[in-house]
């Protein structure tokens, strides 16, 4: 029944005291936020902490929510700001990203294998995810975040523009340029693998 309610209605009811309904919002957005944070930090624990903090902040500041803007945009804005703060802290204590497909350390993320996939498929997927995470980390932070919002957050360009406080065209250009650079890196990688073989 709660699935029929839109985000704004849920927030209205949460503000009116129906606090348990906030769970529905958590269910709706948690996965996407986690995917974003995993691709940015590569650490599951840090990602989950950030996601939890974003939800708590939204809940604590619920009275300031205005139904004229989308709840998703607000939540993503909070989350992005939290990520940036965390990123600054992380820069002070840099962590080397190591590309390794078979020896996964505690810091690297291994997507959960689905029941239907073979161990080889799981390994390839992990490798692909690590590669993408590594290439994203090489991009300027704003560009990489725009790509993460688009693909891992599943956001529209208008929502990205609002969340990142930039124009619609800027959001599109960031995605385009980011993809071009990523494509170039993937092509380079493929070419170098070809040379080795």
């Amino acid at each position: 029944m709660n699935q029929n309610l839109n985000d704004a209605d849920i927030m209205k009811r949460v503000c009116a005291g129906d606090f348990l309904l906030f769970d529905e919002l958590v269910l709706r957005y948690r996965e996407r936020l986690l995917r974003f944070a995993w691709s940015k930090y590569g650490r599951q624990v840090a990602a989950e902490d950030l996601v939890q903090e974003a939800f708590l902040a939204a809940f604590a500041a619920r009275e300031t929510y205005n139904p004229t803007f989308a709840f998703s945009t607000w939540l993503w804005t909070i989350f992005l700001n939290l990520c940036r703060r965390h990123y600054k802290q992380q820069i002070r204590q840099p962590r080397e990203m190591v590309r390794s497909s078979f020896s996964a350390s505690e810091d690297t993320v291994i997507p959960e294998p689905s029941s239907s996939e073979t161990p080889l498929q799981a390994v390839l997927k992990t490798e692909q995810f690590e590669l993408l995470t590594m290439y994203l980390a090489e991009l300027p932070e704003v560009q990489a975040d725009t790509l993460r919002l688009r693909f891992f957050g599943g956001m529209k360009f208008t929502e990205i523009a609002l969340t990142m406080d930039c124009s619609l065209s800027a959001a599109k250009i960031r995605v385009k340029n980011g993809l071009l650079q990523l494509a170039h890196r993937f092509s380079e990688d493929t070419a170098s693998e070809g040379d080795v073989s």
Partner: protein
Amino acid sequence: MNCDEAFDLITHPTDHQCEELQWHLQLCPRCRQMQETLAPALSSFHQLLDASSEVDEHANHYSDLQQSTDHEELPAFPAAGKPFLSAETVRMAEQAATRLSAETDMNRKANSPAPLKSSHKRLMNAALILMAGVLMGWGISLEVPESSVPGAASAPEGKQSCVWIAQRDEISRPAVRMDKSSVNSVVLSCVACHLQSTAE
């Protein structure tokens, strides 16, 4: 579908294979080239997303079971002992809400056409100003006496009197004709009088 919409679909996390886009790509070589250039990056994102959606389905199936075990293993608050949510984070959320409210209002005002009432009001004002202008012009033309000439009438006392008026009176008499010297004196009187008034 235009190229801008096509780019939206090319980079869409889920709808990147819709028929509408395929039609556009067949017809538009520029977009087709763009898609081919971006393909290595796009396919990487799409494969991961497709795979994770499969994982999500699997995970949702067992979510209830996992939740009960997770709660036992993980502490509710971080071990450091400090509160999980800081006042700074809440302030951040409040600021974000304020900014988004302001931007949404601005966008709304920019996108929505001006209300009918205000446009009517503006038209009425313009009509009133026009009418007032016409009435004022008409009133001035009624007030000006036939014998007076603008500028000359306002010549201050003690200055040379306006020769043009005197000459006009004389010309109106049939016997009198204007010679060259009298024309020059009229011009000089006009220049002296009108230059003075413009300088003032």
